[in-house]
């Protein structure tokens, strides 16, 4: 079931323009991690303020990471005439994130610790990805005298 879900997410990401396999994996892991942690947090806290704030933080940072990855892919392989749109999208995304966080903290009365924990899911995802990369790295064979 998880395999089917992963394949579906991968296919959806490919359709949305994530051509690089590794970038697609990163986003997919972020989506799964954010959704899983939010579900756990909401169930454990009984849909209390902390759990909902965690979910809001995870949603904001996942949305942010999605657009950041798209922008980074486009920026490295610069296409003619797309720079202005790209920069507008980049700063628009940041402005939206700031407004959303300000609204949650100032007006919605979200739990700040929950929000920070939710925002940290992207760091957890990156750390996890780094650890997995190190584990999957093939050890160097030979004694180095071949060269």
């Amino acid at each position, binding site marked *: 079931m998880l395999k089917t879900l992963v394949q579906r997410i991968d296919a959806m990401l490919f359709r949305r323009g994530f051509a690089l396999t590794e*970038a697609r994996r990163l986003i997919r892991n972020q989506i799964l991690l954010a959704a899983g942690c939010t579900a756990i947090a909401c169930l454990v806290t009984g849909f209390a303020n902390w759990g909902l704030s965690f979910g809001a933080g995870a949603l904001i940072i996942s949305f942010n990471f999605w657009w950041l990855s798209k922008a980074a892919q486009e920026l*490295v392989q610069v296409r003619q005439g797309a720079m202005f749109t790209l920069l507008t999208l980049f700063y628009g995304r940041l402005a939206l994130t700031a407004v959303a966080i300000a609204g949650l903290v100032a007006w919605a009365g979200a739990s700040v610790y929950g929000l920070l924990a939710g*925002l940290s899911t992207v760091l957890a995802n990156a750390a996890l990805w780094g650890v997995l990369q190190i584990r999957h790295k093939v050890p160097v064979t030979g004694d180095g005298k071949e060269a």
Partner: protein
Amino acid sequence: MRKSLLMALAMVLCASAAFASDGAAVAAVGPVAAWATAMGMGLAAGLCGIAQGLGLKAACEGTARNPEAGGKITVTLILGLAFIESLAIYALVVNLILLFVKPLGA
């Protein structure tokens, strides 16, 4: 240099006003917090912007020199940008806490 001296002077003046008397101290924490959040967010945004620019510059140079490594460089760039931007977002949250949650008082 002159600007930073002026800013430091302004902060010292605000702090002295805040600690002038017990009654006034609580009331003056608000403006000082507003100054602190403005300066903190400005510093965080500026430094994170410089860091992201440096990362992007290095990634573009690396891709131009070795186009075959573009995929790996892009993934590393995405991770680096995410880390840097997380710092800016954390700074934003801390500043919003200072402004709206007011842990230092009214």
